[in-house]
């Protein structure tokens, strides 16, 4: 048996060793990706809020109506 082949068969234990490593990497990759996605979402919501605030201020300025105190 050639060297790479013994590496992949793991002496007959491939069915246990490789899934274990797969779980290790999948869980850690998920742990890495999740905060990235959350960060993107948080920033997007924040920008949307800023845009809304800006629009409200602009409208209030042009109509010269006393602005209600923003929360």
């Amino acid at each position, binding site marked *: 048996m050639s060297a790479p082949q013994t*590496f992949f068969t*793991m*002496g*007959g*234990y491939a069915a*246990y*060793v490789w*899934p*274990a*490593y797969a*779980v*290790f990497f999948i*869980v*850690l990759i*998920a*742990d*890495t990706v*999740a*905060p*990235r996605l*959350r*960060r993107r979402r*948080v*920033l997007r*919501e*924040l*920008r949307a*809020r*800023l845009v809304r605030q800006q629009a409200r201020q602009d409208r209030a300025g042009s109509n010269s109506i006393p602005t209600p105190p923003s929360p």
Partner: protein
Amino acid sequence: MSNWIPLWLHKLGSPPTFYRFAGALQPWAMTLALLLGAIALYGGLVLAPADYQQGDAYRIIFIHVPSAEMSMFIYAAMGVAAFIALVWRIKLAEVVAMESAPIGAAFTFITLVTGSLWGKPMWGTWWTWDARLTSELVLLFLYLGVIGLYHAFEDRRQGARAAAFLAIIGIINVPIVHFSVNWWNTLHQGSTINVFGQSKMSWDMLWPLLTMMLATKFYYAASLFRRARTDLLAMEGGKDWVRKIAADEAKP
């Protein structure tokens, strides 16, 4: 002269400073984690010889033991942060405690799954009610309880304090569970398993294991920094420094 350390720590506790500090360190920690992890995997999967008793199945040890160690290390780190958060009410400590919990839960889950994948060929069973395994399962439930309690509150900071309290109760609980399950096993005369009995590992097997332990530590630091940064952005949404970051990242 000697008070620059408390001053520096005090400054680091402020969210914008920590955000910058973590942002600067995070890529380095992640690079080190990947580098050390790759070396450890090469050493463990390719260079290390097969075990004379367990064959190649023992190679699961290179991820199982570091994960198990991390599951407890992170719980201890979370407990320390929780204690600081409860006593001094530092916002950053709350963030660190609460963002450690999902990472710890991930490592605990990995430990349980890899352990049962190792147990099947070695002991002939996926699961056994031995003290170490049961404690690990209880640890997973503790992590899930902390995460669940944190998210059950409307107010994030209040949730963080309640969950921090639960984390501290858990620290007292884990040794009690370990002891009681040990007692229970001797009563039931269960199958006694001692996988680490032949503990004298050769250096060829030991160095990849130690390297992997170091790699997972760096991974924890990197992941914690990433999570804490995101959490700070979400918590401090109304502040100027966050608005600036949001505005800067709008134009790519």
